């Protein structure tokens, strides 16, 4: 009996290792290939050597990446844009979900349904009208002591951030999570003299940590991976995010070692974020039954 149990747990572990290895292969290949010259990458492709840091190993590809692309600038841009989108997204979407979940307002179901309905419209269909729209928006700029007003947000940071702060999925996620928090807590707080914002701030949000972690990750990933939108609205190199940078490598003669080095560089922040929020992320997904 004991042996059978041991065998079955060994089998389960073997299956897990197999799945983990399959999932890890592309990342290992990327990291290992980023250290090899092109000729060796293709030469090693037909054997297990493709996954091993052997042969002519160096950091030359990383040096070349910084020669070809302003990678540091792109990384800073993406970190800034993603971080601001996440922080503002958490605040705005949780506030919206709080109103829809806790406050008794006529028509809130219709509003909530309308918000959810936007989920079925793919961004690609909205992209071009949105370009026209953001190009009509006014922009206020402080120049010395005078306030200047100009038209159009193209080629700015805010055009990469503001359209993505309000997010139907984040509102839905918060709404569902808030629904699981007993309303009696609100009532107790109200008896103690708390207003709506205080209840949101001091009662509901502190209990919504896992939802916040999930929203943070689910907002960060598309912001970090954003490609189509910046392609359409950003013209200056100094404002471009990391994903546009990958296109710099696809010339007539592609240097795959450099592609892998750049891909490794831009993957690191995502991995760090996921590791940092992993536990909350999994908890939230498990409790809300939502797939990312």
């Amino acid at each position, binding site marked *: 009996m004991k042996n059978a149990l041991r065998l079955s747990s060994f089998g389960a572990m073997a299956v897990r290792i197999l799945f983990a290895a399959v999932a890890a292969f592309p990342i290992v290949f990327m990291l290992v290939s980023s250290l090899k010259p092109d000729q060796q990458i*293709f030469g090693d492709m037909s054997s297990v050597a493709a996954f091993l840091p052997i042969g002519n190993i160096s950091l030359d590809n990383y040096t070349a990446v910084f020669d070809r692309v302003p990678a540091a600038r792109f990384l800073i841009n993406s970190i800034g844009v993603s971080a601001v989108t996440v922080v*503002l997204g958490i605040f705005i979407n949780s506030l919206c979900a709080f109103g829809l979940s806790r406050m008794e307002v006529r028509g809130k179901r219709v509003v909530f349904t309308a918000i959810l309905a936007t989920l079925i419209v793919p961004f690609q269909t909205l992209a071009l009208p949105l370009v026209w729209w953001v190009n009509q928006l006014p922009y206020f700029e402080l120049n010395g002591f005078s306030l200047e007003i100009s038209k159009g947000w193209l080629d700015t*940071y805010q055009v990469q951030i503001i359209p993505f702060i309000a997010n139907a999925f984040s509102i839905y996620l918060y709404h569902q999570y808030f629904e699981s928090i007993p309303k009696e807590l609100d009532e107790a707080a109200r008896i103690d003299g708390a207003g709506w914002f205080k209840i949101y701030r001091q009662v509901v949000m502190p209990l919504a940590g896992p939802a916040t972690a999930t929203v943070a990750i689910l907002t960060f990933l598309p912001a970090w991976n954003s490609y189509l939108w910046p*392609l359409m609205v950003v*013209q200056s190199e100094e404002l471009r995010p990391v994903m546009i940078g990958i296109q710099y490598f696809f010339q007539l003669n592609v240097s795959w070692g450099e592609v892998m080095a750049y891909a490794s560089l831009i993957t690191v922040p995502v991995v760090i974020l996921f590791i940092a929020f992993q536990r909350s992320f999994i908890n939230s997904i498990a409790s809300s039954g939502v797939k990312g």
Partner: protein
Amino acid sequence: MNKRFTRILATSIAAAALAGSLGACGKGSASATSEGTSEITMWTHNAGNPEELAAIKSVVDSYNKSGAAKAQIKLQAFPQDSYNDSVVSAAAAGKLPCIVDIDGPNVPNWAWANYLTPLKLSADLSKNLPSTVAKWEGETYAVGYYDVALAMLARASDLKAAGVRVATIEKPWTREEFQDALTKLKALGKWQYPLDMGTAGSGEWLPYGYSPFLQSFGADLINRDGFQSADGTLNGDKAVAWAEWFRGLADQGFMAKKSGKDSTQDFLNNKSGLLYTGSWAADKARAALGKDLVVMPSVDLGNGPKIGGASWQWGVTSGCKNADAAMDYLSYSLKPENLATVAKATGTIPATDDAAALLPAFAEGGANRIFMEFSRNYAVMRPETPAYPFIATEYGKAVQDILAGADPKTVLDKAVKAIDANIKSNGGYKS
């Protein structure tokens, strides 16, 4: 908890402030790009190609410092693969720069869409390679510094071992000789597939690379008389014969239905014996193989060897407020020394003989002169119609379907139906 939330709120406010300040930085850059009359912006597709970008920048710098500049040129570079999307978005927002880079076959479409204005240059274009001057409806809309040419690369030692003669401009391989050469090369047993046609390629490579074979069979992408229908041209007997021949190369095991991602590298790693590629691969191949490399013309499939003509070119946008300065810059940039600078940096074929004379590789007897001859002798412009981007997409899909095993006639009929419907729905793409 209370403190924690206060921190979150404070961070949100700080983030909002950061968004504002980031925005301010961004706007500062944007205002610099706004089109005035003393500074005009020029977009180029070569971000990520430091050599070409540096060459273009040196031309711009020399114009800006020339003293005779009618405006200062500000250069903005975009990655090639996403360049067209950036241009189309900017056009939708009415934010096109004064001067744009354009892939040659797209010029009629951009002219039809009123992105471009006809060129009025002081430079003489009559001596340029024909494929470097883009015309539509009798007007010149764009001009290129260079062209590229398709060719067959092989190792002389392999051809010798297989008993295959080296094809030349005077005597290119016929269809039968090509079949014989592939059979003999395969018999050497050195490669799983002796021929690499870059079948993993996508996008513009598909019409650029494979429509010349179609044309060599006597068919075409569209009936060029009026450019109103592809019926009978892209789905006629000759087109079907091309499709069957092309798929036959894969069916006989001469080439992979889907090649490796980097055909040049595979050829250099000796994973193929015969590479169908462009002149851009020649310098890399020559550096690796030295004198063993042979550069041969494409195959004559009945109507002479054909290769695609036209590469990246320059045009002036119709909304440019200082078109006079834009035209002046383009005229200046077409000087032989500027063309030579760019061609040297890119390994491409300079647009004029005067520029070629400044480059040993392209001068008479130079290692790359043969590509210039290919371009002069075999280049066929992709159809000069605004419908071209649609035709290219449909043809590309047809190529992939044919390779995947679909019935050639059915696939080509479907492509023709889609192309004709598109032309009709756009009113024949009349100007």
